[in-house]
């Protein structure tokens, strides 16, 4: 099986799915499951070949591409299980299924490309396919913003690719990136352009505004793909620019930020990247705390987690890169799981607004447990996968003495407790609202992918060393020291981690607590309304449900924050004004402008050749 054939077959399934959906919606949606599940099995079981038969395409089976492709296949295939249930809700189910699979095929194509022009081609293809899926949800404006920001990314990528082509006369990724590291002047330009592409796709500050809009208003089944899958393409580009171009070598002569006796310092170019990552964490965290829509909240948390990935990559060492790669995996599974849990709520209760929901745990306990596992991982608490990656990233931040980045990272990780708890407390817990009495648990087909994702999150949290089967080849391909962790030991710069031990101790702790609990006298069950109300008599559950403005005292402190959105709006107004001025000059039907141009024209003619 070659990669080419694989992509082609997914594409054929996509067309098949389009036709089938026209006849039978559910059958078409099931084809999307098949189309995304088979590649995953192929990646895990079969050795793919990279030989190509079609003239234009060039693929290579590199370890980095394989790592990303597996994560992408996991996310796409698991989310696909939700598709059959959304067929009735979507305006154009056939196009949705078609675009779902084509966007999947193009991401895979992107990761395995060995030529830059092809990277650009697939990059654009992903943008275009997802562009048409987003307006199938709530809002059309979201997809315009999404396209604008993505266009900034793709066009700067194209510009960088063409610059590289002009210099080295080839599109080959390996050759151009190896050569560019010896040319630090052109390298800096290409680095910046790649940086724009990476930040735009990853949704990092200051190009993060599309994330909450697109994630918040895309169809519930596509939000997990956007957040868990597509934004990770930005991380792919970031790895190419920091490690592929060997930025530490390329910028070895440039100014190093805080170069002291103890520290080597970081080249200022990488430091700026790190700073943007740190700002993303802070902005994402603060904004996520203030959201009322659960999907927007998770979208802002993706901004913050993108910041962690940038921090891991930008430090440019093996532990940092391992941390970033592990975080890509941990966040992809956790965020997809959380988004799917919210999708279940949306499917059953028809809303994702936290302030409108309450007590969902009594209707859907299994979905609640899935969401709980997802947020424990997102908050970086052991024994989930998110802890391992945060631990690695902290290790490298401390080793390099990056005070401000560490402050942002700590802020983000504690802040994540706040925002992930918000849907937990107000949406799933709290009073059981009578208007949702009819709501039932998710159907089995929806629970199945959630079980798989939560299983992955827990498994890699307890046995992280298995992930290095995929991470170590990547480290090797960039000539970094391999980590080679054993089952019980993961080495950092200043300590080691024994993830199974921690998990084991936690289990012992819970066991002790459980024995304590059952051996003590049994308690009498009372209703949720039977609570202490300080002497007041309240009979409506809605009045006893604390869901609106959950973190009001904290939000007040930064309510008047400067917003990048306002800056963009001003920019839009300025461009509009300029456009109107141009229109007034050249395209207006006003008499005075016509006379003006005639006068100018005649003056120029009368002036004759003397003007030059």
């Amino acid at each position: 099986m070659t990669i080419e054939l694989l992509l082609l077959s997914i594409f054929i399934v996509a067309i098949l799915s389009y036709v089938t959906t026209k006849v039978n919606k559910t059958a078409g949606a099931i084809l999307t499951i098949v189309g995304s599940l088979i590649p995953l099995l192929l990646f895990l079981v079969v050795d793919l070949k990279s030989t190509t038969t079609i003239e234009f395409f060039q693929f290579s089976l590199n370890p980095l591409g394989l790592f990303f492709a597996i994560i992408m296949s996991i996310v796409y295939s698991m989310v696909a299980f939700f598709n059959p249930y959304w067929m009735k809700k979507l305006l154009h189910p056939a196009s949705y299924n078609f675009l779902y699979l084509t966007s999947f095929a193009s991401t895979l194509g992107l990761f395995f490309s060995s030529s830059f022009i092809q990277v650009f081609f697939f990059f654009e293809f992903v943008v275009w396919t997802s562009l048409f899926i987003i307006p199938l949800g709530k809002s059309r404006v979201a997809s315009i913003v999404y396209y604008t920001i993505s266009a900034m990314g793709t066009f700067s990528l194209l510009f960088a690719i063409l610059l590289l082509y002009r210099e080295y006369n080839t599109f080959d990724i390996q050759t151009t990136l190896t050569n560019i590291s010896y040319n630090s002047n052109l390298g800096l330009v290409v680095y910046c352009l790649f940086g724009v592409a990476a930040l735009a796709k990853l949704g990092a500050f200051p190009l993060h505004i599309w994330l909450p809009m697109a994630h918040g208003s895309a169809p519930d089944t596509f939000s997990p793909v956007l957040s868990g899958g597509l934004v990770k393409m930005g991380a792919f580009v970031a790895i190419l620019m920091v490690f592929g171009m060997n930025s530490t070598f390329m910028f070895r002569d440039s100014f190093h930020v805080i170069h002291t006796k103890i520290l080597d310092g970081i080249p200022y170019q990488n430091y700026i990247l790190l700073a943007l990552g740190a700002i993303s964490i802070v902005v994402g965290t603060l904004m996520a705390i203030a959201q009322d829509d659960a999907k927007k909240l998770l979208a802002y948390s993706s901004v913050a987690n993108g910041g962690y990935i940038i921090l891991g990559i930008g430090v440019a060492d093996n532990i940092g890169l391992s941390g970033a790669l592990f975080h890509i995996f941990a966040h992809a599974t956790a965020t997809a799981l959380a988004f799917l849990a919210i999708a279940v709520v949306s499917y059953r209760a028809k809303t994702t607004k936290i302030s409108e929901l309450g007590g969902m745990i009594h209707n859907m306990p299994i979905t609640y447990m899935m969401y709980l596992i997802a947020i424990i991982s997102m908050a970086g608490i052991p024994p989930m996968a998110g802890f391992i990656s945060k631990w690695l990233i902290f290790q490298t931040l401390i080793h390099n003495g990056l005070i401000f980045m560490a402050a942002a990272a700590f802020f983000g990780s504690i802040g994540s407790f706040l925002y992930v708890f918000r849907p937990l407390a107000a949406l799933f817990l709290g009073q059981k609202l009578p208007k949702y009495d009819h709501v039932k648990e998710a159907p089995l087909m929806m629970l199945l992918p959630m079980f798989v994702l939560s299983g992955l999150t827990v498994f890699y949290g307890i046995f992280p060393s298995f992930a290095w089967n995929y991470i170590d080849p990547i480290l090797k391909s960039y000539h970094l020291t391999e980590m080679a962790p054993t089952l019980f030991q993961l080495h950092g710069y200043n300590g080691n981690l024994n993830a199974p031990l921690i998990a084991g101790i936690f289990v012992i702790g819970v066991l002790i607590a459980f024995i304590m609990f059952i051996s003590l006298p049994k308690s009498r069950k009372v209703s949720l309304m039977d609570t202490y109300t300080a002497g007041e008599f309240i009979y409506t559950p809605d009045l006893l449900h604390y869901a609106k403005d959950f973190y009001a005292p904290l939000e007040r402190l930064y309510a008047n924050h400067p917003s990048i959105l306002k800056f963009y709006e001003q920019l839009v107004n300025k461009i509009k004004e300029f456009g109107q001025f141009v229109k007034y000059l050249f395209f207006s039907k006003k008499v005075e402008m016509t006379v003006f141009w005639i006068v100018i024209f005649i003056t120029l003619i009368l002036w004759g050749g003397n003007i030059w």
Partner: protein
Amino acid sequence: MVIVQGILIALAVVLGAFIWQTALSGVNRKIVARLQKRRGPRWYQEFLDIFKAMSKTSVSHGWIFDFGVIMAVGGIVGTAMLMPITNSIVAFRGYDNFFIYVYLLAIGMLGMAMSASGSGNPLASIGVMRALTQMLAYEVPFMLVVFTIIFNTQASGLSLNGHVLSGSVLQDITLFQQAGHWNALALPLGLIVGYISLLGMLGKKPFETFIAPAEIASGPMVEYGGKQLGMLMFMHEITVFIEVSLFINLFLGGAQNLFEYLLKYFIVYTSTNLVTNVYARFKIDQVVKFFYRWPFALAIIQAALVIYLGWVI
């Protein structure tokens, strides 16, 4: 065999910690009472309270109410099991990484918060909201100081690592201090931040907003009674043990023998109780403002002094 031995030591640590800390709470109640010219309860009053609560039948607000309590006690007991007491009383040598405490402690907190919100009482949710907000305030400056400590020590474990990456020195945070100066002396600004954060962690005034007994009816604990309350009181004592022990290990050079450890523990814990009695309560937004104005700035200055200038005593 090593692992079984480790678990047995760990369980002994948890049991010992419970007895010591609960007794000390009782003693502290007496000390505070004497300050206020009262006689105060007997020193074993806290034990009576806990065991009495545990023996009573109680009410439950659904399975998450109980599950959260189990998760809370489980998480905290698990965290306490990893805590090194002295140089020789260490259950799992080399695996007591600082970050494990921060995050494993969080799972206990999460369990308790979940259980409290699951009770359906808005007062409990308000308490949880305040507790989380306060956590955001004190934890970041504290972690920055520990960041400085780890950078300075080149180790993030409290006890000696079995294996360290090539190139770095074989050491740990407590032995490093015992060989040189305590971090309390080496990083004076860090000590100030650490102590203020400790007050925040323990929920001592001026940072006891989330309990606020007069205002939101004892905060997250409002709905509890019987065994749930008893277990959460047990959890509270263990949490105090973890936080104070962490402070001793990070700033006061750990301990070489049990007596030294208990003495340091007594001094630190009693001092927080003395401080708490002369302060009034901050509002929650004042807590956040305070922590990000002073301790955060001090933590950054301390980190910059150590990392950029290399100024360590």
